[in-house]
C-alpha cells in the first residue's frame, strides 16, 4: 500500500550536523523536515565549543573533510557570518620545548603536503601575535584556515535559513521499513513522517537511532569539560593551544587527557577546553578535569591565573571506534543515511558532511570519497560492540 509521503527527507537531530544536512538538502531542492526530541541545539552542539579546525588533523580523510568544510564555512559566512559569530581568526599551535617544536614541525610539513596552510612562527613573532603568551616558548605554527563559530547560533540560523520545517519536542521512536527492507520514514511520539530517505544526525545517540532501523553503529560518548571565564577585553587573539593537543585527539586512552585550547570569544569570555574522558554519560562536575584545564591555560597565558571562571559545562562527543564519522548511505537499510559520530569536530565538519549527504541523497557524485566513512565498516572490521 502506497502511503502519501510527508516530504523527501527526514533529518533526525537538530544539532549542527542535522542543520547542515537540512541546509544542503534544501538547497538541492529537496523537501526537508527536521525532527528533534528537544530544542534546536539541545544536544552536544549546545555543550561544546565552536572551533573550526584544520590544524589538529593529520593527513587523511578527516583532514580532507575538514578542508572541504572550511571552504564551505567561509562561503556560508558571506550571508550568515555575523549571526553565527563566524571569526576567521586563525589558530596558533605552541611548542614549549625544542622537542615539541620538532614534532610539531614534522606534523605541519605533512599537513602542508595535504593542502593546509601552516606557517612556522618564531618566538619573537609569537609574542607579537599573542602579547600575553608565556615567554620562553620554543616556537609555533600558525594556521590561518582555523576559524570559529558559536555552535548553537550556527545550527539555529542555518536551520532557519534552510526553510526546512523543524519539529522540536518530538522523539523518533522507530524507523519505518517496507517489507523489502527499504526505509519509509520515521515513527515519532506525535505520529509518523513518511519519506523515502531518513538522515541519522542524532549525534551521540546515533547508535540508538541506527538500532531503531535494526543496524549497528557503535557510537559512544566521550566527555569533555569547558571552562568559561568572566568577560574580558580581547587579550587572546587566536585559537591558541599547546602542541601536545594533537596527540590527545588521536589518543585511545580512556583516562583524562587535557588539551587546553584557549580562545577569546566575540562576547568577551575566554573559553578553555576541552578535556577528553570516556566515562559514559556522567555529567557531574569533575574537579580534576577543571583543574587540568586551568593549569593548561595558565601554562600558556599566565595572566589567566587571576581571571575568574564563571562556569563550566560538560558535553558528550559522539565517537566511533576508529575516530572517523559515519557519513553516507547505509546498504543494510536502503534509504537510511548516516551523518553522525564526528567526535570533537562535529561543528567544523558539519558543512562538508551536509554537502556530502545532499549529494548522496540526490545521486550526485560526492566531492570526496566516502569509503572511509562507510557506516557498515564496523560489521566487517569488528570494533567495540555498542
Amino acid at each position, binding site marked *: 500500500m502506497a502511503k502519501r509521503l510527508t516530504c523527501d527527507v527526514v533529518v533526525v537531530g*537538530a544539532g549542527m550536523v542535522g542543520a547542515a544536512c537540512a541546509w544542503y538538502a534544501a538547497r538541492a531542492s529537496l523537501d526537508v523536515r527536521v525532527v528533534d526530541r*528537544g*530544542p*534546536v*541545539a*539541545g544536544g552536544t552542539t*549546545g555543550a561544546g565549543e565552536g572551533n573550526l579546525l584544520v590544524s589538529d588533523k593529520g593527513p587523511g580523510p578527516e583532514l580532507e573533510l575538514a578542508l572541504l568544510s572550511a571552504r564551505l564555512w567561509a562561503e556560508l559566512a558571506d550571508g550568515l557570518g555575523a549571526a553565527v559569530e563566524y571569526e576567521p581568526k586563525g589558530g596558533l599551535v605552541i611548542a614549549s620545548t625544542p622537542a615539541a617544536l620538532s614534532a610539531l614541525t614534522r606534523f605541519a610539513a605533512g599537513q602542508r603536503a595535504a593542502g593546509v596552510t601552516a606557517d612556522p612562527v618564531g618566538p619573537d613573532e609569537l609574542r607579537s601575535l599573542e602579547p600575553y603568551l608565556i615567554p620562553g616558548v620554543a616556537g609555533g605554527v600558525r594556521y590561518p584556515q582555523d576559524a570559529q563559530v558559536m555552535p*548553537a*547560533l550556527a545550527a*539555529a*540560523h542555518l*536551520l*532557519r535559513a534552510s526553510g526546512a520545517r*523543524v519539529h*522540536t*519536542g518530538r522523539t523518533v521512536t522507530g524507523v519505518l521499513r517496507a517489507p523489502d527492507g527499504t526505509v519509509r520514514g520515521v515513527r515519532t511520539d506525535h505520529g509518523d513522517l513518511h519519506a523515502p530517505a531518513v538522515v541519522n544526525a542524532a549525534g551521540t545517540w546515533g547508535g540508538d537511532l541506527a538500532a531503531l532501523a535494526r543496524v549497528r553503529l557503535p557510537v559512544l560518548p566521550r566527555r569533555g569539560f569547558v*571552562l*568559561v*571565564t*568572566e*568577560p574580558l577585553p580581547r587579550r587572546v587573539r587566536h585559537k591558541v593551544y599547546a602542541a601536545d593537543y594533537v596527540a590527545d585527539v588521536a589518543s585511545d586512552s580512556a583516562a583524562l587527557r587535557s588539551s587546553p585550547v584557549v580562545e577569546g570569544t566575540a*562576547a568577551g*569570555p575566554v573559553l*578553555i577546553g576541552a578535556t577528553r574522558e570516556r566515562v559514559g554519560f556522567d555529567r*557531574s*562536575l569533575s*574537579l*580534576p578535569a*577543571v*583543574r587540568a*584545564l*586551568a*593549569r593548561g*591555560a*595558565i601554562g600558556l597565558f599566565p595572566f*589567566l*591565573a*587571576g*581571571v*575568574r*571562571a*564563571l*562556569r*563550566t*559545562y560538560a558535553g558528550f562527543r559522539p565517537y566511533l571506534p576508529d575516530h572517523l564519522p559515519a557519513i553516507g548511505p547505509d546498504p543494510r537499510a536502503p534509504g537510511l543515511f548516516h551523518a553522525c559520530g564526528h567526535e570533537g569536530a562535529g561543528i567544523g565538519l558539519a558543512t562538508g558532511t551536509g554537502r556530502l549527504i545532499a549529494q548522496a541523497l540526490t545521486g550526485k557524485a560526492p566531492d570526496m570519497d566516502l569509503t572511509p566513512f562507510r557506516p557498515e565498516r564496523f560489521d566487517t572490521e569488528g570494533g567495540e560492540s555498542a
Partner: protein
Amino acid sequence: MTERPRLAVVGAGPAGLAGALAAAARGVDVTLVDAAGRPGGQFHRQPSPALGAPPRQGHTWERLRTGLDRHRVTHLTEHHVWCVQRDSMSFLVHALLGPAQDEGVSLRADAVLLATGGHEYVLPFPGWTLPGVITAGGAQAMLKGERVLPGRHVVVAGTGPLLLPVATGLAAAGAEVAALVESADPGAVPRRFPDLLVRPDKLAEGAGYAVRLLRHRVRILTRHTVVAAHGTDRLEAVTVAPLSPGGRSLRILCDTLAVGHGMLPGTDLAETLGCTLTGTAVRVDAEQRTDVPGAWAAGETTGIGGAALALAEGHIAGRSAAARLYGRTPDPAGWAPAARARSRLRRFFAAVDAVCAPPPGRAGSVPDDTVVCRCEEVTAGEVRTAVSTLGATDARSAKLLTRAGMGWCQGRMCGPAVAALTGCPLTPGRRPFARPVPLGVLAALPDPDAPAP
C-alpha cells in the same frame, strides 16, 4: 584516640546556626562556614561593627550567638564556598577567602549541612534597571546591616511575605513609604484560612505589620503591580496598574523602588554534589537528609518558609547528623517540638505561596524592548525571537541562543523571567561553581593522583 567526627555547616543563617549548635552540643566537631563577616544570615543580619551600633536583640538570636561560643563551634567568616565535593570517604569544602575572593582554601569534613538560604528574584518591567530600583531584600540589608535608608521616598512592590517587614522597617526608620504595592489578592486569603490558622502567631505578625503601616499612613495597594519605572538618570516615579480589569493606573513619585517577587532556594552546592531536587528546592527526608549519603540540608535551600522554619529544620538536621556521625539511629521523639513546628510552618508557607504567586502571564508580557538579563543586556524581544524563529523551547536553549543568563549572576536573577518568556516551568540552572573562581585557585587544587594527606 578516637577523634570527634567533623561536620561542616555551610551558611550561618538561622538554619545553619541551629544545626551547628545542635550537632556541637552532641559532641560533633563543627565548623561553620559563611560568606558574610558576621553570623546571622538574612534574618538575624547584624549591623556592621564599624557603625558602633548596638547589636540586634532578641531571645533566639541571643541563644544562638552565645551557643556558638559555648559549644566551641569554629566559625569561619568571609569564606565563600564555591564547591562541595565528595570523595570516597568524606567531603571537601572549597572556599574563597575574604572580600577579595582571590585565594582558595579547602577543608575536610565527614559530613556536611548545606544551609545556604535562598535568593530574591525580580521579574522585569520597563525601567527596572534604573538606579534607584533595588530589591526588597537589598533595602532590608542596607537598613539592618548598614543602618542607612536606601532613599527618602520609597515604593515597596512585588509580592510575598517579605514586603510587609521591609515596608514597616523603612517607615519606622524614617523613610516616607509612598505605597506598598502587592500583587496578591487579599480575597484569596480566607480560602486558605485552614492552612494559615495552623500558625495564628504568623498570621498575627502579618496583621501587626499591616497595622503599623497604616499607622505610618502608608498606602497599601493590593492586586496592583508596578508596570514601569520612570526617570532619566535615576528613578523619579513608577506607574502602578491594577491587576483586575477596569481600574485606573496611577503614577507615584519616588526616588527608590524596593521590589521583590519572591525567593528561590539556593541549590548550587547541593546540585553539584549530586543531591536530587524537587522542583527548585533540595529534597530532604524527615531527618533533613538529602539523598547523598552524609549530606544534610536545611532552611531555605530546601524551600522558602521564613526564619522560624529554618531554625526548626536546622535543629533537626544537626541532631540527626550528630547521631548518624556517631553511628546511631536518631530518635525523632527527641526533636518532636521542632518537627511539629516544621510541619505547621511548611503548611502555612505553602498557603502563603499560593496566595502570593506572582500574577501569571505578567512576566511573559513585558514589552519587547525591556532588558530581562541585565548582565548580558538581553531584551524580552530577543528571547521571544529565539523561541519563535530559532527553535528554543526551554530556558537552556534560550540562553544558548541569546546569552540570557550567561553573565555574572549566571541567571539567578533573570531565570524566572526567561522561563516565563519561553513558556516553560522554572528549573534550577546548573551552576557547578557557586561563586566565580579564579583559574589560579582551580589550578592549585590538590592533585587528584597524589596520595591523600
